[in-house]
């Protein structure tokens, strides 16, 4: 993983932390993340401004366009907010075609405003791209012409005059222009200092107190920077899954195994009734196997996506293989057709192929009866150190258990087994 979005409440806290450290904000933005574990009754003790009412309540689940979806409660009292939250935390909802639970919400003061500005910063290869529009808000996409862009080469600063000239050319009010320039300079420093890869403030506004406030904020972090961001990021946030992502039993188990080992074990069940299952070594090769199944017109039969790499030990590969075999043999194909297991991979660099097969062979032995019952056909293709021994072991296993196992080495094109299997 690398790019990870965080919740709006967390993003606002990180922004506040940075802007306060820079001396730009006097205090943190007023915004509270609320979930089922929050004690709503005692909350006003920590946040006295709640009692003043005039609140906004929005779901904080990484998806956007909440206004357009009519999911935002505007200018309500704390009593109403509390009532609403109690009724809606954990509510099931279908959003953008995905069903999930609305279990995280954000509560903020309602900010009466006229202007809505748009700001985004995005990392690209050589530079950070800043975009600004004085016509932000839910209709930004129809105001594309108003968006001004400025490229800041990575590692370089820029002066405030350049910023005004390039980004704020459309802002006529001189005082506002100064304010905006100052604000954007500080937000950009937050972007750089906190290892962000993208930030979007749509909209942010000018309050009656003449301060700039983000109304919505979306932040994506580079999670590989975690080791150097411990002080900035703190421990009080997590990287949430996208809305509606529910890990199945098998996926959960493999994710737990993955976390335990230095090797990599990944599993996503796409269609538990699918006929074609894969168990592929390596991140690059695993994508190619999935591609080929789709390219040959069998995407709808693809049951899973996953990969194992980084030299998992025998126990880990055994558990990985058991999990897949368990899932794929749970129910035989409804039409009585054979199921297919592709044990694939490219030519390994230094992994001992025979050794990684040990665990897989243990699992196949254990699931012999289930494999026969579900009429599973196994296709193997692999190269690399000690591959001849590995392939021989697989061939012998097939003969011993009376299970159809076809075995190929590096002299056969990597995805040949996909075509061969699909002929079944």
């Amino acid at each position, binding site marked *: 993983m690398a790019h990870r979005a965080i919740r709006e409440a967390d993003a606002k806290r990180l922004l506040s932390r940075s802007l306060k450290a820079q001396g730009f904000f006097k205090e943190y933005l007023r915004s509270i993340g609320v979930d089922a574990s929050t004690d709503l009754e005692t909350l006003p003790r920590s946040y006295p401004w709640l009692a003043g009412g005039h609140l906004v309540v929005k779901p904080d689940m990484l998806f956007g366009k909440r206004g357009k979806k009519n999911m935002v409660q505007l200018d309500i009292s704390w009593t109403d907010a509390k009532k609403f939250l109690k009724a809606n935390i954990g509510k099931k909802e279908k959003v953008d075609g995905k069903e999930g639970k609305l279990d995280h919400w954000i509560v903020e003061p309602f900010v009466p405003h006229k202007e809505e500005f748009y700001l985004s910063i995005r990392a690209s290869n050589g530079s950070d791209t800043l975009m600004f529009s004085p016509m932000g808000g839910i209709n930004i996409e129809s105001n594309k012409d108003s968006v001004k862009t400025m490229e800041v080469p990575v590692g370089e600063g820029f002066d405030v005059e350049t910023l005004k000239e390039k980004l704020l050319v459309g802002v006529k009010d001189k005082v506002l222009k100064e304010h905006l320039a100052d604000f954007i300079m500080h937000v950009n420093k937050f972007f750089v200092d906190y290892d962000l890869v993208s930030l979007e403030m749509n909209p942010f506004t000018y309050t009656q107190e003449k301060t700039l406030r983000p109304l919505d904020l979306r932040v994506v972090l580079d999670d590989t*920077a975690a*080791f150097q961001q411990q002080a900035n990021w703190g421990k009080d946030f997590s990287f949430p899954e996208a809305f509606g992502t529910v890990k199945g039993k098998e996926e959960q188990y493999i994710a737990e195994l993955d976390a335990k080992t230095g090797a990599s074990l990944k599993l*996503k069940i796409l269609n538990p009734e699918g006929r074609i299952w894969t168990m592929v070594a390596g991140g*690059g090769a695993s*994508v190619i196997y999935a591609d*080929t199944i*789709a*390219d040959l017109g069998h995407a709808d039969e693809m049951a899973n*996506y996953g990969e194992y790499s980084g030299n998992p030990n025998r126990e880990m590969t055994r558990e990985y293989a058991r999990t897949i075999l368990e899932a794929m043999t749970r129910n035989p194909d409804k039409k009585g057709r054979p199921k297919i297991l592709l044990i694939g991979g490219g030519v390994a660099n230094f992994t001992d192929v025979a050794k990684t097969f040990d665990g897989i062979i243990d699992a196949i032995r254990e699931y012999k009866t289930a494999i026969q019952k579900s009429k599973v056909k196994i296709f193997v293709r692999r190269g690399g150190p000690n591959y001849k021994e590995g392939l021989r072991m697989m061939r012998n296993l097939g003969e011993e258990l009376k299970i159809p196992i076809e075995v190929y080495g590096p002299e056969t094109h990597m995805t040949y087994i996909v075509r061969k299997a699909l002929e079944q």
Partner: protein
Amino acid sequence: MATKKTSSAKLFSDKTQSIIYGVQTAAIQRMLDFDFVVRRSTPSVVAVVDKTSTGYHKVFFGEKEILLPIYRTIEGAAKKHPEADVLINFASFRQAYVTSMEALQQPSIRTVAIIAEGVPERSARMLRKRALELGKWIIGPATVGGLRAGAFKIGNSGGTIENIIDSKLHRPGSVGFVSKSGGMSNEMFNVIAQNTNGIVEGIAIGGDRFAGSTLIEHLLRFEKDSEIKMMVVLGEVGGTEEYRIADAIKEGRIKKPVVAWVTGTCSEYMPKDLQFGHAGALAEGENETAKAKNKALRDAGAIVPDSFDDYDVKIRETYEALVKKGTIKPAEEPPIPNLPMTYAEARKAHQVRKPANIVCTISNDSGDELTYLGTQISKIIRENYTLGDIIGMLWLRKRLPEWATQFIEKVLIITADHGPCVSGAHNAIVAARAGRDLVSSLASGILTVGPRFGGAIDGAAKHFKAGWENDMKPEVFVEDLNSKGIKIPGIGHLVKSAQNPDMRVELLKKLAKKSFPATECLNFALKVEKVTLQKRNNLILNVDGCIGILMVDLLLGCGFSNEEINTIIDNGTLNGLFLLGRSIGMIGHILDQKRQKSGLYRHPYDDVLFLDDIAEY
């Protein structure tokens, strides 16, 4: 971003030399093995950098061993080895940025390969920017590297020597290959070798979103490289870099045939946010999908298969067309020198045997679990083996019966200490108070163990066993030793006497009488004691003598042969019991002094008689 690179098209030749950051024993050896197989005249590695070590790293270059100097800094290594223009950086993701920056600053370094995965994106982008400013190259991060066939290989690229030969990487072919994925590079070398005459150069730029050098930059380099006649690219879902390739083909900056495939066509059937194997493999927009990028490449004139499945066919067709046109003239295969096996490899392949220098018959830690005399340590703990059992197994190579192991343990307890005044404890105390550590103080005490202190056990066992064996009359036995001028070992005590017996001796005798099957040697010794007591009342059987003699009875009772017992005694085994037991006490005295923080011991003047005015010798 426009490329400002001024360096020549070829980053590597068969003269290229490199510095390795990190003592990567296996990777370095693999590079040198490649060197040997491709018949390089000089090794491709000249130095190693490691923050914590200095000295030399020893490696094989063919059959010979050579030394690679180890430096603490990249700057130090680069200054001493200006001939090396490549730095291969094996630093961790935490250190990759600082070390790569340092490498880029060295005037002699032109290319930096960064192996680490998980380098923060901003760091990677800064490195790339610096490299561009300096007209240098970065390969990586998150890559195995790449290689130039028959010339130079980065670290672990290309896999084992067998694979290098199978994939024709030991001599140049005609294809320039570049991919994001390092893991797929070996597979692609294999695909290319099976369908063409092999690669000239293959580079994996790394799976991160922001690589230090890009696919297009390497392709433009390949375009200028006269050895390369066609190019193969393996791109990946995520990012927009493949459009730069399409542009370059359209604009005529790339004229050589390009066979391209962008992986990740399955992404439209997958959950939108599913992250594939690599950090960069996530489409953040419609134009970043594999489908869109494959189409753009195809439209621009690249040769793009319908699927990875016929990638090989497209590569072959392109190659064969070039052969037909005469652009590529397949060359004769060069002979491949046989890489000498290392001893470890040869052993694994059952190709070699060698007499061992050391034979061990008591314990084994080379398997899954430590064993003592063939018994697993887990069984020893589970079944409550005693210290006496372990001494039997490790000293005498025998499981001893319970009566024997109990006796041995009693001997250890009885000999454990004898107060602070005996020579061993005294020496240990003096050394401890001089501020020496535990080991030195104990050694100081142990070094007093010898014929006059504690060391009489072996001697007593030997002489009394001989007397008993030969059925000597006790009087004759005493006379015989006297006439030879030998003080009878095990007889006599400075303090104890017949009227004031040594309790330890009484205890041991009692225990042996009760539990041993027979105590014949002791019975003989007691008769001898009667004779010696007639001479003086302190000529009693002392504790050393008693232990030695009873150990003879013990060994006899345990079924050791006469011959075996003689060997056991001659080897000093029985003195070992005193040594082991007394070490417990000496350690106690040392710790006792240290606990009290006792100062330096100095012997009092009034305890020394000074006679320095007597005549000289």
